[in-house]
């Protein structure tokens, strides 16, 4: 019997990684099948193969445990997925769901070097909170649109915390409308049916795209 397809193996390991982080208990075969949107019986042969290769151990109660080797591969693929998805959505401006799907395909073929460089690129500048600020140069902010534009919020990166904006209904995925814009770009946006005035420095942290 030939060894199994690499990308299927990697998908399995990635899925097991994600599932085992989600709850303190080890994932079962049926949970894995549900996550991969496949039937539990279809997985049996593939799981056996992986057990032979030393990636996983199947425990008596149908639970799957990752070996050290499997867990290493799985978390590397998971990291690749996250970095790729972030690159696609934050730097290239793709829809987050589409970016995640695309990342599912690319994660298996990207070389380790390309991945490392992409990871470094996306992490700069360091520090929680402002680690994605470099997206500012590439994604258009509220300031770039005229009065009357209907926009979809892609991300919000306020230096002083964006909780107040989120409370008022300005958060990723939501639609807002620019009601007024003054010359210096102080704006009034409509979110959740309410008018909210924003200073230019706040508006420049709200990244958006035009909604058709």
């Amino acid at each position, binding site marked *: 019997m030939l060894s199994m397809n690499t990308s299927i193996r990697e998908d399995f390991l990635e899925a097991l990684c994600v599932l085992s*982080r*989600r*709850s*303190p208990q080890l994932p079962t075969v049926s949970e894995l099948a549900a996550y991969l949107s496949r039937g539990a019986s279809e997985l049996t042969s593939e799981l056996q193969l992986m057990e032979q290769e030393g990636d996983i151990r199947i425990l008596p109660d149908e639970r799957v445990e990752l070996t050290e080797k499997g867990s290493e591969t799985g978390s590397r693929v998971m990291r690749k997925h*996250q970095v790729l*998805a*972030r690159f696609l*959505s*934050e730097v290239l401006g793709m829809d*987050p769901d589409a970016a995640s799907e695309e990342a599912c395909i690319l994660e298996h073929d990207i070389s380790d070097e390309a991945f490392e460089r992409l990871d470094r690129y996306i992490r700069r500048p360091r520090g*929680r*909170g402002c680690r*994605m600020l470099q997206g500012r140069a590439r994604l258009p902010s509220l300031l770039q649109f005229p009065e009357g534009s209907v926009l979809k919020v892609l*991300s*919000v990166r306020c*230096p*002083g*915390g*964006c*909780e*107040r*904006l*989120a*409370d*008022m*209904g300005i*958060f*990723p*995925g*939501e639609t807002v409308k620019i*009601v*007024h*814009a*003054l*010359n*210096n770009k*102080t704006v*009034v946006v409509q979110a*959740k*049916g*309410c*008018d*909210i*005035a*924003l*200073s*230019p*420095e*706040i*508006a420049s942290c709200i990244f958006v795209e035009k909604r058709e």
Partner: protein
Amino acid sequence: MRLGLIGNPNVGKSLIFHQLTGLGVEVSNYPGTTVDLTRGNLCFQNERLELVDLPGVYSLDGTSPEEEIVRSFILGEEVEVLVAVLDATHLERNLYLLLQVAEYGKPMVAVLNMMDEAAKKGKEIDAGRLASMLGIEVIPAAAIQGKNIAEIIPAALCRARPPIVQVKYDHHIEAAIRSIQSVKPVTRLQALQALQGFGNDADALELAGALAPEIEEMHRMSVPQIIAGNRHHCAHTISREVILELEEEKRDTLDSVLTSRRWGPLILVATLLSILLAVFFIGSFLEEILVEVFETMVISPFLALPLDPLIQQLGLAFLLALQAGLGIAFPFIFIFYLFISLLEDSGYLTRASFLADRAMHRLGMHGQGLIPLILGFGCNVPAIMGIRLLRTRRERVIASFLVSMVPCSARTVIIAGIVAAFVGIAAALSIYVITLGLVILTGLVLSRITPGEQYGMILELAPLRVPQLKNVVMKSWYRIREFLFIAMPLLIVASLILGFLQYAGFFDLFQQTISPLSEAVLGLPGYATTALLFGILRKEMALETLIILAGTADLTAVLSMGQIYVFAVVSVLFIPCISTIGVLARVVGARITLLVSMYTLFLGILIGALINMLIK
């Protein structure tokens, strides 16, 4: 039994509170005017109830002073029932807060206020359906017309229960809540708060601190953003179920003009200028009448009485204080507050903030800083209190300098009382120009040298409404009451001390020492400097003292026009009054208060000396 009224800013909470308790409380149309708790009592079926009006908030998870007050109030055991007030015209955004309140598990009822406005906007809301989705009683109401307000208390007493509605969070968040709970026996609410980085359980916080970055990595959003998104989604689902939208919402054309790029700033400047001028002219007109009446009806008869000199001196000081207080409180401050309340209730004040944002950035603040500056024209004390709403220390420091320099109504009395009366209207207005010029200059400099970062404006524009006369007058009365009961006693005590010192001959001593300096630098006689000193107690007292010390109300007989002008400029600029200093120390600390006082003292003397040199 204690009940709490909770809701977003500007949903009619204070109006409902007022209708239930009958107490004269403030009804505000500016987000965040009520920072402190307002309490009122009422009786229902022989039971005494306490009703607490909480400050309007958008969320319970934030770090602003209002949000912290509300959160600790709800967490405390003392409140038994919460009455959530919802704005029917913005139901979705209001449900967002209600969903958070529901997590605290207190018995609740909801008041669906502004049903009349919602109907006008073509929205029909199924209150019964909303009640069954939330699991609490929902009372449709219209507070402006007083409709259904009487049903709130019986419902809150007999039928309040903890809501059944619960937000389903993202599965990563739910998993994190479960794993925190599996390690440490905390409630779902505490685990959720720990994930957002607050709460008082150190273990839960530490655990959450380890889980949060992983969730943030997977979602490419911060945990508070994910949680907010889930709550908004839940609120959206509910509101879509219960609202029947009959027609598309139209934008108000008046609103478009008021905030338009071309007309907005012009209308703003015109509005503010005309308010200041109106206060100045109507105020001085009324003041003259009041003082005249007081003089002939009270003071002259009193002086005619045969009394002991000490008692006569003290009695006169008391009457003069009363005269000064009433002569100012009513004419200047009350008229000013009437106009400001009118602007506030109409919803224009928030638009003014929006329009002024750019100019305020130059002064190192942002749009919301305009409100304390405007309030400063009435009295600096409440204006300094308003500074607390600014979000960074840098802005509060800059604002404390600028607000202390704004000519308040007491300073207006000096300008109107001696400069306008003896020198001329143009000279009086020129003092405003000098002061405002210095405020702007100070702001320009401070915005460059003050350390700290700037945080911009995030301000909801209150809907434009026709202000209700009753509310406007009531609110002005509420504000003036603070002046009458806090400032007036101080004024009277200070005046009595002044009268005693004069009787004891203290002034002559002081004048002799200060005279050479005063004459050399400011060109003013020694007694004028003594009068300036008393201006620190209350600004308009500089004027009163000057008249007492000069021994005549006709100042032109003893002072030249130049001297009068210099006196007015210095007393307007230098050192804020003692009440302002007290509030400053509370809001920005002793160091900044000292800096503000030293700066204004130096500025006053410098400008006074400069003008003195120019006149010579």
